[in-house]
């Protein structure tokens, strides 16, 4: 019979129309600037720099090794080393960047910088609201804009941040063990040297 399908369709749209007033499933729009859908955990957009603690300058993990700068395919990272050094989380004195710029209008979000970073310092952000009135200045992110705390990292990518933290704990343990081993070795060497010295002294004395 002609017209049955039309009636069925009309009923469906009528249910949509009335349902949009009480059924959230039938009104799926999220009004963006006021409401936002929480980002998925794997969402990523542009890189940022992690710092530990509260002071971003002191806690910045980056040691300005410039590997990311060299690896970046579109070459959107620019780093200049500082002359002064600062201690890292292991207590070693490390270099630090004087200038660390990322041009997000060039960045393509490939995540290669994250993969090559040996210091777990650069990670991907999921913030996408970079719109500004200026084409060049507002899209060139400087060190202070890039630096974000580890807590923030935990809030956007919890699993990945957990893994990173574990790596760092491991590193610290390794480092401590190494230090210990080194210290032991040193002590041993010293002992040996001392015994050797004592032995040679004794031999010398014997010869005489």
């Amino acid at each position: 019979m002609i017209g049955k399908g039309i009636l069925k369709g009309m009923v469906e749209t009528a249910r949509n129309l009335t349902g949009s007033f009480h059924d959230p499933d039938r009104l799926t729009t999220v009004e963006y600037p006021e409401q936002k859908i929480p980002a998925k955990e794997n969402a990523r957009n542009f890189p940022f720099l992690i710092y530990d603690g509260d002071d971003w300058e002191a806690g910045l993990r980056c040691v300005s090794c410039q590997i990311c700068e060299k690896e970046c395919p579109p070459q959107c990272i620019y780093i200049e080393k500082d002359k002064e050094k600062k201690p890292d989380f292991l207590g070693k004195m490390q270099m630090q960047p004087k200038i660390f710029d990322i041009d997000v209008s060039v960045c393509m979000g490939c995540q290669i910088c994250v993969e090559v970073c040996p210091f777990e310092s650069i990670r991907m952000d999921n913030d996408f609201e970079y719109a500004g009135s200026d084409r060049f200045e507002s899209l060139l992110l400087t060190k202070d804009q890039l630096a974000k705390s580890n807590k923030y990292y935990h809030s956007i990518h919890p699993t990945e941040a957990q893994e990173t933290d574990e790596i760092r704990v491991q590193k610290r343990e390794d480092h401590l063990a190494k230090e210990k081993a080194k210290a032991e070795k040193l002590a041993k060497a010293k002992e040996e040297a001392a015994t050797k010295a004592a032995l040679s002294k004794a031999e010398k004395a014997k010869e005489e």
Partner: protein
Amino acid sequence: MWFEELLITIKYYLVLQMPGSLQPVGSAFLSSLPIMTSFGGLFALATLLERKMLGRIQNRYGPNRVGPGGLLQPVADGIKMLTKEDIVPKNADHLIHFLAPLGLLVSAMLGLSVIPFGHRLIALDIETGILFFFAMGAASELAIFMAGWGSRNKYALLGALRAIAQMISYEIPLILSALSVLMVVGSLSLSDVAQAQSGGIHTWHIFTPWGFLGCILFLISTLAEINRSPFDIPEAESELIAGHMTEYSGFKYALFFMAEGVAMFAMCALTATLFLGGYHAPLPILSFIPGPVWLFGKLTSLVLLFIWIRGTMPRLRADQLMEFAWKFMLPMSVVNLIAAGVWVALDGGVAAWILSGLLNCVAYFGWSRILSQASRFNPRTYRYAEEAGVSK
């Protein structure tokens, strides 16, 4: 009654204040002014309502940024339209390009002048009101052709030709289904048609077998006549840009848009007058509410129905459209005319009810069964896809 009398008294008072030579012009002006202003305002509100309702049907809010709840959206649209640059193509036929939107709007507005808005509340009470209405509809076809040809654009011309072919094809069932009402009422005057349905809801023409089928056929033809979805192939955005309106911008485009809206209101008002009792209340007790309120209520509900249909149905292909017009609409409207003839011959009553109802039902079910034999009207089957197990 009191409201209509009040309006008429005010008009005569104002006309009598004028100098004698100006009185005919003043009278015409005072009759047309309320129609033009009220339908202009109604058009603005209807665009907002349409967008809101379409949004709700598509699981989203409509426009809700400008003003409280988006109420000022029409104003913003109007400002945008008026401040846009008016571009005329270099090779266009300038005079024809200029005249087309005016012709369309004027013919749409003139159609409203024969609609009775209340008892004696009609701008142009002539013997042949409905013929005048259809004549104005025919004049709008020419305006569409002028728009398409004057723009020197192949998309505009194609859209205009499609629109005209469609309007001419659907004019036949439109007039034939209106003719059934005129046959029963026995007059071409719309105020007589409205007066024939004054006795309450049971006298409305839609509650008769011929009136019911006639109303449905009339509404479908109306949709095609005013180029609304699902018959909007003349302005199919994805195929023809905007049809005959392609080369228009700014105020002229707004005029086209407005002409379409006004034509929709005029057609809805005509449907309400022919089939839904015009300005009469459904129950005699309710007749203290003025007639214009009832007419505008019926008109608005028809507009809502059109928006609902627009939100539901996809656009027809051009050949499907023509096939539907000539193979379904035309035979059904002729049968409906015969049913109305049976009604007139038996002068109403139970026998007329049964006979004309039977005639219409047999025609509808039989004809749709015959048409269903032709595969084009059946639901589409995806033979190869189903064999391969892709679908279902």
